[in-house]
């Protein structure tokens, strides 16, 4: 199949970017979207141009690194899919595809389609963990967790940190990402001890990183490759209010 691509090219953080047109012919519809970009890059290199920089690693939908906006949608037209799991069979022969980086104030563009998502790491660093040292943990069965609770916690823990929720939100909010971690930890007995401090610290860090506020448009859930539910955000708000109400750190 043939495709026309309009790709955002930007030299570095400070330079201005622009859309550049590329045509590709004779593509196999079973190709993944990233393999299509590989094909373009091979062509650009041979022709003496600079290849398009994009982020990716696992190409299995699990590392969370490959995000980009495709026709204005985070990770492209398929719901609940990462860019690497998108295949050309989701597009029409001859279609024009607009490819841009994730855009959010807290995710500055580094080059072409690559953005800086280290703000997520700093949110985790501010409290997204159980404070347990290595070595002398109690026997695992000493902490029973019902099947149901473990599964629910897992649903939240499954977030891959891709940032699609932020990119797709008109406010650039990181509420879905942050709330997923808060929920994962708050549901499990291991995480309960620190729940108040955790939510206060993580929300404060989220604000410090220039993420916008959540105004409940629920666009994030629709684009999330892991189907993380907006109910997590409700849980985060509950945990936050609870922590404020009891005014306790810990």
């Amino acid at each position, binding site marked *: 199949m043939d495709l026309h691509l309009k790709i955002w090219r930007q030299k*570095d953080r400070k330079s201005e970017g622009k859309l550049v047109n590329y045509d590709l012919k004779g593509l*196999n519809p*079973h*190709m*993944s979207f990233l*393999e299509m970009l590989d094909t373009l890059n*091979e062509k650009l*290199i*041979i022709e003496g*141009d*600079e*290849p398009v920089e994009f*982020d*990716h*690693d696992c*190409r*299995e*939908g*699990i*590392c*969370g*690194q490959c995000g980009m906006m495709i026709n204005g949608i985070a990770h492209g037209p398929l719901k609940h899919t990462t860019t690497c*799991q998108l*295949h050309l069979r989701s597009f029409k022969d001859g279609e024009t595809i607009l490819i841009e980086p994730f855009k959010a104030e807290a995710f500055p563009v*580094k080059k072409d389609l*690559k953005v*800086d*998502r*280290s703000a997520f*790491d700093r949110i*985790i*660093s*501010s409290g*997204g*963990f*159980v*404070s*347990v*040292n*290595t*070595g002398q*943990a*109690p026997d*695992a069965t000493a902490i*029973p*967790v*019902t*099947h149901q*609770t*473990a*599964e629910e*916690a*897992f649903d939240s*823990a*499954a977030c*891959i*940190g891709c940032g699609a929720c932020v990119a797709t939100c008109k406010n650039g909010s990181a509420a879905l990402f942050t709330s997923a971690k808060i929920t*994962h930890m708050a549901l*499990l007995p*291991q995480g309960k001890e620190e729940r108040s401090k955790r939510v206060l610290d993580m929300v404060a860090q989220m604000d410090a990183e220039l993420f916008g506020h959540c105004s409940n448009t629920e666009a994030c859930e629709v684009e999330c490759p892991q189907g993380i539910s907006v109910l997590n955000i409700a849980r985060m708000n509950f945990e936050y209010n609870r922590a404020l109400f009891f005014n306790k750190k810990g």
Partner: protein
Amino acid sequence: MILDSKIPQGPLEQKWDNYKKKAKLVNPANRKKLDIIVVGTGLAGSSAAASLGEMGYNVKSFCFQDSPRRAHSVAAQGGVNAAKNYKNDGDSVYRMFADTLKGGDFRAREANVYRMAECSLNLIDQAVAQGVPFGREYGGYLNNRSFGGVQVSRTFYARGQTGQQLLLGAYQALMRQVGKGSVQLFSRHEMLDLVIIDGKARGIIVRNLDTGEIERHAAHAVILATGGYGKIYYLSTLAMGCNGSAIWRAHKKGALMASPSWIQVHPTSLPQSGDYQSKLTLMSESLRNDGRIWVPAKQDENRAPNDIPENERDYYLERRYPAFGNLAPRDISSRAAKERIDAGYGTGPLKNAVYLDFSKAIKEQGKEKIKEKYGNLFDMYLKITGYDAYKEPMMISPSAHFSMGGLWVDYELMTTIPGLFALGEANFADHGANRLGANSLLQASVDGYFIAPYTIANYLADEIHTGKISPDTPEFEQAENAVKKQIQDLMNIKGTKTVDYFHKTLGKLLYDYCGLARNEKGLQYAIQEIRKLKQEFHKDVRVSGQVNTMNAELEKAGRVADYFEIGELMCYDALTRNESCGAHFREEFQTPDGEAMRNDAEYQFISAWKWTGENGEPELIREPLIFEEIQPTVRSYK
């Protein structure tokens, strides 16, 4: 050179305790004076960096991804082993030790393997305490399942995303230390060389992948936890960035490489569908608990799988290996699939696959149960192939997956360079010639959480009075200049072929001649071809872009340059081992019914290789393997 494996005295069950009792300690007040570099943030690297940071050392943590959470460990699906015996099915540390040793075809050290089994108990406790949401029984207790090559249930899992959840636990522990300031994080930094001063590892040279800047980092000890090099085959189950460069550059600085040719081929990946393909996706081995593997009984079958009646199917694993059937170990299952495919019974559009069929399991347990166990894998299969595996069998095929080889390390996980440690998949230890499923997440984790913190302290105890290591020494300058020159040389070639072209060509060569099966003639041929290809690469590769900026092509070029040398060593290694064991199947050495023929009399040793220079032949150094507890037996799964 005589290799000292430093195995502690005493009976097997007491060796690790004996070691810990006698190991030197570093006073908490002195730990602040000691700097440690950890390269890699997979399970091995982040667990090590977090643990050492917690203990009070100054730790610098490096990875090439944009966040430590994206290290390749995140992709592991199936599970992690631990001899907890929660199922009361007769499991024990000893049994796990025995299974692992046997599964590895008696090519691993007893003491290391025993220690891994012993530490497995603590790992599950540690992970649960961190909040890893492992699968649970309805009563609230941990659930587990069985994996290839064993007859007990000892594999703990978090749906089909066990690696992700374990890694997130370790990553969170790491980020907690980053928040406290005990660990400094350098993501998007790639290690390009090791710096040695007075014979000891003292630092690394890295490239900041976002700015192109070359930086020097000094420390009292360096840990490489940089994962495996199976991506050398190009098509593999590994992430695109996985590579062998860090360990290879350390090898060129004097660290020995052990067992490089033992690369596991996984039986259940998705088959290749075209030339454009960049990787092969793994379908977790856990699927083999419920899926039955078969091919049509007649060659060149063109009917759809559901139209082939039961009596015209060949369940070849169940037929050949009745005791283990679909759960036969990976090397055995992969070879059996290749044998059927090569004999003309392959399925799928390219006739390069076998079927993995869930119809019986769905009939017996219901779709919901199967969905709960493997749902995300079925979704992934649908996304990639467009087929619904609830309705028709999956197509699977063997593909390169895991390197059992890596830097040679002693019992302390220290390489032959003092102060340089290798953890996780980057070292050669514990698995022998074949890794049992779910043992690698375990090995990577225990290396980092429970072993390195003791053994590194034992080394660092003598470094307290060394004082700060300065990066302004001739050794650092020399290493930095060499790295800059290599980069400039690659950029200057300005040839006509892309880096990927060379990587794919090398990968195909290795797959054909040093893959699932090898023979003498083929290996010799491959060595010659790899040399030619390497020369061509250095004359004709085209690396676009600039040096002093982000440049993915340049990153790849450096890695592929190393792959030629690693590939050549793999072939040497395979050539010198006149036997078939585990992942290494030499066609000349097989039984009449096609099973591997090991030769303990002559090859019961670890092959450790020394770099002798660009044009020299690598030098083989043998570490004899001594079995006191279990006498090697023929590995039969019939």
